[in-house]
């Protein structure tokens, strides 16, 4: 009896220490990244262009670029992911076509981001002639976001009680009427959560954008969707890798800002998920 209690005591102690240390490391990373960058924040930092080899100025164009990209990506990927998720949940992974689509979406979720970059480069930039541009970058990232949104929408709809569908059918509703008027509103919170998490992930995505849409440094704002653009993550990457210690402050400050942005998006998403559970 006594011996067994000791096993649990020792194991739980060790595992607890390891878990706490991991927790501390994560918190420390988040804290350092945010705190060490926040001190450079001032209004001009968010508006101005970078100046004097990244040693002065701000990240205005990168913020704008990221905002344009994320808006376009959401514009494309919400209908795409939503309807794919609806298909998988409501029309079914039982038919042959359904199985193929299911496998396709699952496979897409595992493809490395750099391979998406190559694909976007070959298809959008070169074959379709969009060049290195906002459009190429956004389309590439849209494809990356598709499996994230689609599989969450599918789960959200599959979790709804069967009676909800049947009650609507029993009133004479058609299948798509049931989907759009009952099921999607009922799964709304979880669907929004999925979209937010997809957005949070994609806004920090770097590698595919390097290949398809990013410009290192630009003195003018993009005029059309076929122009390249600066984004927050590629900006961080370029500064860290190509500039010396004088420019490091900008990498820190931009990282801090991007991390805050992502964490805020995630916290909203988690809050929604929590509300969903409480209902």
């Amino acid at each position, binding site marked *: 009896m006594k011996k067994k209690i000791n096993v649990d005591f020792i194991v739980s102690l060790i595992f607890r220490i390891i878990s706490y240390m991991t927790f501390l490391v994560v918190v420390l990373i988040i804290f350092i990244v945010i705190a060490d960058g926040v001190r450079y924040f001032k209004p001009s930092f968010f508006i101005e262009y970078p100046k004097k080899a990244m040693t002065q100025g701000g990240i205005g164009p990168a913020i704008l670029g990221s905002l344009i990209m994320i808006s376009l990506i959401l514009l494309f990927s919400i209908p795409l992911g939503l309807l794919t998720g609806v298909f998988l949940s409501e029309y079914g992974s*039982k038919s042959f076509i359904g199985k193929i689509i299911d496998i396709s979406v699952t496979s897409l979720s595992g493809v490395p981001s750099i391979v998406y970059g190559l694909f976007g480069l070959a298809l959008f930039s070169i074959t379709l002639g969009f060049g290195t541009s906002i459009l190429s970058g956004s389309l590439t990232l849209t494809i990356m976001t598709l499996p994230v949104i689609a599989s969450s929408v599918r789960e959200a709809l599959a979790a709804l*009680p069967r*009676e*909800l*569908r*049947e*009650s*609507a*059918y*029993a*009133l*004479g*509703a*058609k299948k798509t*009427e049931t989907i759009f*008027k*009952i099921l999607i*509103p*009922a799964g*709304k919170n979880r669907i929004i959560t999925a979209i937010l998490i997809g957005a949070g992930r994609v806004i920090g995505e770097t590698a595919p954008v390097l290949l398809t849409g990013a410009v290192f440094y630009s003195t003018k704002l993009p005029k059309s969707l076929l122009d390249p653009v600066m984004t927050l993550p590629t900006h961080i990457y370029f500064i860290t890798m190509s500039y010396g210690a004088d420019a490091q402050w900008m990498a820190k400050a931009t990282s801090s800002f991007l991390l805050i942005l992502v964490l805020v998006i995630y916290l909203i998403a988690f809050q929604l998920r929590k509300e969903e559970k409480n*209902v």
Partner: protein
Amino acid sequence: MFNLTAIREQTILNIRDFDGWYGQKQILKNINMDIYKNKISAIIGPSGCGKTTLLRSINRINDEISDYKTSGEIIFEGKNIYDKDVDLTLLRKKIGMVFQKPVPFPMSIYDNVAFGLKIHGIKDKRKRDEIVKLALKRAALWDEVKDELDKPARELSGGQQQRLCIARALAVDPEILLLDEPTSALDPIATQKIENLIEHLSEEYTIIIVTHNLAQATRISDYMYFMYQGELIEWGPTRIMVRSPKKQLTEDYLNGKIS
């Protein structure tokens, strides 16, 4: 099985040689029965006997289960509802259904009841208001919710939600109302209210209720149908069947020997 009290009453639904399968497994075996207009019919039997499947075949909601197949006929308004040219939407409008678990739609109380009206194309707002009010009144819910029709339906209690589901089904003006164990998820007081409501509703609607609660079936039904292992063993007026069942199986079930 033919009996004289029944012959004078008007039937609304005739089920003839009806079989049902899930894949290879036969769930319903050669069911023959009639349902009488403006009466409460209770389908009873031990769990797994096929009573819910039978009920779900009457408005063809079981079509939504992919490997469900049927043969035989269910005659409603002189027509087999399994005929190819039947409009499912219209059929389900005429044969409403309420499920075991109360499932309010993710919208306000008003919109829940108005949902069926909207999809069936009743655009006139004033007319809709009127029907919603009437349906809620018939479902004995109006007095409790009349001041908060815009409240999300999820905030109602379980019993209220179930009455809302009944109101929602009534709003599209069905002739038959199918109830699948409508009180099994409710507490005794809410159950009592629903039972009273059902008895009241039978003045205007034909009610078919599936229940595992024998006492409930005895209390509220006019006709009783006893099923066992996919077969309809016996049916008839409740009072007669409870007092003097013709079949041994029925007697055993009524006495609690099989369950």
